[in-house]
């Protein structure tokens, strides 16, 4: 079944590429190559670059190692930010879900962060920590922590009463209940929230990098390609970002599948 699904996905992807290729060929020579940038005209713009133009740009980006280095730099920021943010968020969420007293104490703080879009903190973090790694990683961590916290909190609160009662009457103490009942049951919700958090982390890093004029960085590569504008570079940067989000998401999906092996599955 998954094999069939994979094949269908591949077919759909190839169709998309083919349609793009045809559109680009039709557009060649017909689309305007001179565009108004608000204050000046730019000549020789390929609005819909052909495969040839994309291959040429791709070769340049690969041979100059710009793309590889940008992928590493941006992925590293996302990875560290996600790890830091999810660690803090999960611990807090488990705490607020498990202990009422802790929830009441933590709630005002959580609410404050929850209703502040993480991206809005960008100028503040830049002012505090400067451009560079710290402000970016912390910005991602802030956004991720809030989402992971909510996931962990809901996960703990969703543990059915019957399991807790059964465990208590089997003589299980609080620590055992937490480790063997609450944690495994909260894990699927935590991992589901991490998938959302990772998508958010990539949005955050692109925005944070757009305003930091320093390579290597996928976000700034995108900013540069927009300044000329250089559409082939833009498309390659976008496709790379999409692929990276997919890879990160797939990694969490694998963890999620492992953590839910015991669940009843409806026929897929």
């Amino acid at each position, binding site marked *: 079944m998954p094999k069939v699904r994979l094949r269908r996905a591949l077919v759909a992807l190839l169709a998309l590429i083919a349609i793009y290729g045809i559109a680009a060929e039709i557009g060649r020579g017909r689309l305007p190559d001179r565009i108004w940038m608000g204050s000046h005209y730019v000549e020789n713009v390929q609005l819909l670059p052909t495969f040839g133009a994309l291959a040429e740009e791709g070769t340049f980006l690969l041979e100059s190692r710009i793309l590889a280095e940008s992928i590493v730099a941006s992925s590293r920021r996302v990875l560290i930010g996600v790890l830091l943010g999810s660690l803090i968020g999960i611990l807090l969420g488990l705490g607020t879900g498990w202990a009422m007293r802790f929830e009441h104490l933590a709630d005002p703080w959580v609410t404050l962060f929850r209703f502040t879009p993480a991206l809005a903190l960008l100028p503040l973090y830049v002012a505090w920590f400067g451009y560079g790694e710290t402000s970016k990683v912390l910005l991602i961590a802030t956004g991720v922590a809030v989402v992971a916290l909510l996931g962990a909190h809901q996960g703990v609160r969703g543990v059915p009463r*019957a*399991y807790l*009662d059964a465990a208590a*009457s*089997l003589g299980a103490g609080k620590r*055992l209940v937490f480790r*063997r009942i609450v944690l495994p*049951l909260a894990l699927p919700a935590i991992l589901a929230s991490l998938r959302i958090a990772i998508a958010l982390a990539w949005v955050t890093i692109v925005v944070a990098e757009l305003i930091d004029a320093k390579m290597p960085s996928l976000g700034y590569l995108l900013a540069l390609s927009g300044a000329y504008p250089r559409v082939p570079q833009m498309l390659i940067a976008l496709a790379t970002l999409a692929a990276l989000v997919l890879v990160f998401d797939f990694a969490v999906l694998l963890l999620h599948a492992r953590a839910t092996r*015991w669940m009843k599955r409806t026929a897929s």
Partner: protein
Amino acid sequence: MTAPVLEAVDVSYTYPGPTPTKALDGLSLEVKDHEFVALLGPVGCGKTTLLRIFAGFFQPAAGTVRCGGSPIGAPGWQRGYVLQEEAIFPWMTVRENVEFGLLAKGLDAPARRTIGDEMLTLIGLSAFEAAYPKELSAGMSKMVEVARVFATDPSILLLDEPFGALDAQTRTRMQDALAGVWDRLRKTVLFVTHDAEEALYLADRIVVLSPRPGRVKAEFAVDIPRPRSMETRFSAGFLTLKRRIWETT
């Protein structure tokens, strides 16, 4: 005459809320050592409430409950409790389920394994030790829950309609399985059910409760010899008693 192991004297309980519901009203009950008592009554008569009081989840609003002569405290393995709802841990294998109470008791792995083996053999599910509950039928799941409680070696078992959600045939099979386990271990059992035949087949004594608020309406000693079988269900003694119970309820 031995002293009662489980005792309720004049117990009342009211569920709080916008419409407070009086579940139990001045109920008194005794269960003796090694006795199998069935608590029989219609849905909503407070059977589960009484069991949860004995298990230690609720405090009675009035009256006293005692276990082995002392007041009942927090829930614990000494009073093994099988919930009415499905409470097998679906994220654990069958063996991990059966051995969970032993883990809570602090037994080491080899000791858990020995008792786990014994219990799995007793309920005939040794082949399923590594399976997750999703692979079990509803009847098998419930037997795992019963075995999980038996494994901790409680002095008293509180069973809340363990076979209530099963079809008639499976229920009969599970009753035989339970009777078999009980014959070997002879624990004190308080068994809640709304099925008169099930009560008769399993119990030494049947306590009939009135509709809400629950109080004891009648009591019947079941002097039918063990082991009981399919023949028992159609014997004259069984049917006479069944009729008498039907007439009181």
